[in-house]
């Protein structure tokens, strides 16, 4: 990894090249205008250097044409950069439909990665090359941030909600993962590595498996242990809504509003069930705030995601 004084980070994701291209364009513009201005002021300072202590400068009239020109041209350049960078930004912000999802919990001062198959990692994240990966992240305490310079991606990790980040690695290797939002004493120690593996190696690593089973099976066990299944029954006889096939659908609430059933909604429904009551149901679900940890919440979310509608099984985005 030590290669002298590198002046430039590796490009290890599909987005890295696009971000770098934009960067170089901006560097070129900056160099151009810096050299232009610096050159002019040094040139003018030399050429018009005061020789006679009593001399004054030539007074001319300011020109509107010049003012308009040097307002409009920077504006146009700025708009080009805006459009280009917005396009890059949209690509960075919108994960593809099919991603390998990994849950991330940040806490002072470590990273916990939960794969759906149940593997847990601390400060290391194994992913396969050439496939898109989406991180669904939350914090247990203060705001953190996941930053992988080689992938050119970064996103804050916030307590009380989920945030996303996606990337598709293009080169096997080990890449720095940094916490990039100051979070207290060991902020600079909250680092890790993303380990990008060839597909075969990744399969081998995956099949090392996890003793507890997949995230969804952990969630299933919790679902029973916490007695969720007494109200949420697949036969619609329960006091709570049927959860099979619910993930990804739109539901109507008591007040007439509609909401999409995503990770955030499931999490909120467990922690503050009274916030959004599904139409036709009573507000009787107790809150599990303080009873489930962030990691248990992830497991329950994954379990709900995994519940396929009956009788016809539906394709779930995994």
């Amino acid at each position, binding site marked *: 990894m030590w290669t002298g004084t590198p002046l430039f980070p590796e490009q290890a994701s599909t987005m890295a090249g696009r971000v770098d291209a934009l960067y170089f364009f901006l560097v070129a513009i900056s160099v151009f205008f810096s050299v232009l201005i610096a050159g002019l002021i040094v040139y003018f300072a030399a050429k018009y250097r005061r020789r006679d202590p009593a001399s004054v400068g030539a007074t001319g009239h300011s020109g509107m044409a010049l003012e308009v020109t040097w307002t409009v041209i920077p504006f146009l350049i700025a708009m080009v950069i805006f459009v280009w960078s917005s396009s890059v930004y949209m690509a960075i912000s919108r994960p593809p439909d099919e991603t390998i999802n990994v849950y991330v919990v940040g806490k002072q001062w470590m990273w916990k990665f939960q794969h759906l198959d149940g593997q847990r990692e601390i400060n290391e994240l194994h992913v396969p090359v050439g496939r898109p990966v989406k991180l669904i992240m939350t914090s247990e305490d203060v705001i953190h941030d996941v930053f992988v310079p080689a992938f050119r991606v970064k996103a804050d990790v916030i307590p009380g909600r989920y945030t996303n980040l996606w990337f598709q690695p293009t080169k096997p290797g080990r890449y720095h993962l940094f916490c990039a939002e100051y979070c207290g004493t060991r902020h600079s120690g909250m680092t890790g590595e993303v380990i990008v593996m060839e597909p075969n190696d990744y399969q081998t690593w995956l099949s090392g498996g996890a003793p507890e089973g997949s995230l969804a099976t952990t969630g299933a066990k919790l679902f029973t242990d916490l007695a969720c299944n007494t109200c949420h029954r697949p036969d619609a006889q329960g006091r709570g809504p049927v959860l099979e096939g619910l993930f990804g659908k739109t539901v109507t609430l008591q007040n007439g509003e509609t909401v999409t059933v995503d990770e955030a909604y499931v999490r909120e429904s467990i922690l*503050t069930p*009274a*916030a959004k009551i599904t139409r036709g149901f009573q*507000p009787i679900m107790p*809150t599990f*705030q303080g009873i489930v940890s962030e990691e248990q919440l992830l497991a329950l979310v994954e379990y709900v995601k995994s519940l396929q509608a009956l009788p016809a099984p539906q394709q779930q985005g995994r």
Partner: protein
Amino acid sequence: MSDMAHGAHPALAHHFDSLEEQKEAATLGMWVFLVTEVLFFGGLFATYAIYRSWYPDAFAASSHELDVTLGTINTAVLITSSLTMALAVHAAQLGQRTKIMVFLVLTMALGGVFLGIKSVEYYHKFTEHLIPGPGFQFEKEHIRHAQIFFSLYFLMTGLHALHMIIGFGIMLVMLWWVWRGTITAEYSSPIEISGLYWHFVDIVWIFLFPLLYLIGRHAH
């Protein structure tokens, strides 16, 4: 080059050319200061707006716990105090020394009534366990977000009350100036700009009252 040698008004500061200029500067200064106060309270109003839009039911339930009768009385008291303040300003412009003092004292008395009623309300909140913190009690459904409502309630009305107390101080100083003869029909601008401040404090309450006390209270 002494100002006094030219018969200038004793209240004219050396760096102004005329009382008129000084008064304009003072008035403009008070208006700019009130704009800063709008921005200061504005941060709290923005916070209120955001949380109310997220938790409308909790806010409505919390608002019902406030005493609308006392709040309405207080609103009437404060508006009346703005009237007495305006009358004080009018008396100052006419140079009516006694009247100014009467109206200033009345304004302060009404302000005192307001603060007294506020204290009673705060005490009720204490006995009803509605002070945010470990002892907070509310119906389970809304308890988390009700804490935010009551935090805003205490912060906004508390800051408002603090501004009223500062207004008291200003009026005490004005009373003293009137008593010793500094305020005349020619030099009444201190009363006027004190009036501007007091009216501002009143207007803040006019916004606070419906936003805090009247959420979801429809005529049945």
